[in-house]
């Protein structure tokens, strides 16, 4: 009985809200958009901020009167970090909810699983994952876009900076997960282009407790710098080991390093660590005239105020994906083909959280290495390197 009572009360409040809020906005049909994120499961560290971001944005957009008077409705599905679940969720969204576009999924594997389905359904997908295969070859990815920077762009940013520092020989240490595998592949493939030779190629497992052995090997192989590619506790342990060993060569981290939590955990050991980071983590340090700054400031402060945690780069990928769709809807209305075409041709010099996007028929990601800033850790805080 109490449950029904509460439900009725909720309904009453809801209808009251509809009546009292901006009067004209909710008379029109809502625009339905689907979202698939790994809210639970091993990739939940991606899915959670993405879901939170979308919930926050939808509320803000509808409060401001929706899209041209149409309320925005985003149906969020949890893929449980599983490809099969992602496919089921996409089918449900397409057939039952008749969505105009889908944003997500959070991981590369899940995104790849959706490519054939979205292509067949002729519906736009904007993935929040990083893998290059999601949008390449672009001819076979007519309906597929993504907002996360390429792994290769992060590698490019590191190597470009290293060349400036006169570093030619590097030792790489990578985690044995999908993230580490992709990073390792990119590091090895791109090295010759920059005239960099990889003198040591070490690995470690996601639950390993000590990487001293690998680092000592890298040092004795004559490397001028170490590059670690991982997310999770591994990157902190490597940092601590590197510091304790006093290796005398700089430590570079991947773009997964960009969390204040890592600085807290590594403490003093993190001093001097260099990484290519999206501007989301260093927005306070950006010059005021940088086009991304106002967006990042608004997004990060509002997110932190609402959820008491940092959004991280991952929440930002969902932000960019949703805002692109919203902008397209605003300009071309609820037409799947037109939405796709708008994003491919009109998202130019478009400042998002992940970088300044330049979509084109040849590039469905629109970001390159300029999306990253080289950032060093100084006095327990980030500092942008010139």
């Amino acid at each position, binding site marked *: 009985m109490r449950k029904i009572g509460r439900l009725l009360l909720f309904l009453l409040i809801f209808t009251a809200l509809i009546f009292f809020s901006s009067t004209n906005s909710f008379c029109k049909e809502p625009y339905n958009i689907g979202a698939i994120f790994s809210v639970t499961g091993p990739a939940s560290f991606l899915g959670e901020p993405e879901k939170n971001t979308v919930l926050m944005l939808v509320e803000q957009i509808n409060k401001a009167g929706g899209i041209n008077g149409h309320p925005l409705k985003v149906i969020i599905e949890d893929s449980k970090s599983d490809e099969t679940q992602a496919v089921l969720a996409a089918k449900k969204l397409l057939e039952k909810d008749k969505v105009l576009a889908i944003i997500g999924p959070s991981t590369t594997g899940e995104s790849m699983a959706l490519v054939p389905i979205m292509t067949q359904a002729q519906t736009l997908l904007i993935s929040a994952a990083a893998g290059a295969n999601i949008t390449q070859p672009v001819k076979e990815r007519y309906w597929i876009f993504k907002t996360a920077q390429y792994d290769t762009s992060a590698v490019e940013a590191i190597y470009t900076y290293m060349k400036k520092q006169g570093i030619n020989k590097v030792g790489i240490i990578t985690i044995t997960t999908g993230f580490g595998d992709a990073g390792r592949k990119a590091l090895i493939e791109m090295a010759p282009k920059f005239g960099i030779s990889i003198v040591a190629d*070490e690995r470690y497992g996601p639950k390993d*407790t000590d990487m*001293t*052995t690998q680092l000592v090997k890298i040092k004795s192989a004559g490397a001028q710098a170490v590059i670690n590619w991982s997310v999770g*506790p591994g990157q902190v342990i490597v940092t*601590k080991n590197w510091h304790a060993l*006093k290796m005398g060569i700089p430590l570079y981290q991947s773009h997964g390093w960009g969390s204040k939590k890592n600085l807290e*955990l590594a*403490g003093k050991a993190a001093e001097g660590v260099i990484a290519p980071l999206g501007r989301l983590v260093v927005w306070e340090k950006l010059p005021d005239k940088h086009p991304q700054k106002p967006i990042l400031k608004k997004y990060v402060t509002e997110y932190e105020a609402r959820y008491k945690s940092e959004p991280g780069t991952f929440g930002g990928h969902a932000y960019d994906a949703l805002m692109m769709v919203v902008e397209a809807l605003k300009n071309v209305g609820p037409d799947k083909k037109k939405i796709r075409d708008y994003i491919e041709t009109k998202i130019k010099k478009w400042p998002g959280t992940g970088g300044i996007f330049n979509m084109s028929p040849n590039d469905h990601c629109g970001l390159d290495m300029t999306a990253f800033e080289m950032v060093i850790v100084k006095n327990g805080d980030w500092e942008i390197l010139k």
Partner: protein
Amino acid sequence: MTLLLQFLFSGLTTGSVYALVGIGFNIVYNSTSIINLAQGEFVVIGGLMMWFFLEGMQLPFTVSLSLTLLTAALIGLLMERLTIKPLLKKGDLLLMIMVTIAISILIRGILMFKFGKDPYTYPPFTEGEPINFYGAIITQQTLWVIGITAVCIVLLYLFFNKTMIGRAMKACSLDVRAARLMGINVSNIVMLSFIISAVIGAIGGIAITPISLMEYDKGAMLSVKGFCAAIMGGLGRSRGAVAGGFTLGILESLTAGYIHSGFKDAVALLIMLFILFVRPAGMFGKAEILKLRKF
């Protein structure tokens, strides 16, 4: 030479934790013949609860330490009284092992709920520069880990050989029925074995967390490695678990150092299989005892 030393110390550090988990396996195994697969979770409980008391509640070090060990002991006690004791009478070993898996999943779930998925750490026991030992760099916490493990081993040896309760536990491991006929309260001994193994696991977790960080799901991997250490040395032989743990840790480190870090788990496990092939009862186990065991 410097390299070898460095690899050895790295191996000793990881080996210490494997050894402590392995000893925990043995203590429970000796009194009940079951494999407590929740053993690794106690390491996680040790690390995370220590963080909770030390950093979360800002309590002094010794208070946090005692509270953490107390919590671990309490969880061990509850685990035994609520799940193992009612089942022990039926004597279905497989069922009880399944129950320990269930408990490990339950503990992991609760820890995730309470602590989230982020890793935690706290400062090392003593601040200070790493020590240069013939060119090998050793952090002070590494010495703490190895030292604490050594102290645990000595204390356990004294406990099992010099005290009445310890000898009673040993008697239970040799023959439960005979022990009961001698007037030993076997039920209490079983409970005690769970408490001791929980506390030992927690000590390992407390010592290793400043080096390796601790997150809610680290226990499963530690259970597997600790179990390997225990059977490598000979299941049921405490000496064996120590030797097994250190051997496994050093093998991993040497493989990573001299062959390739990508192979370290595989090679270490292959060598373990080889040892068991040559000596099925483990390095210190006796083949005759193995025949009499149910597991």
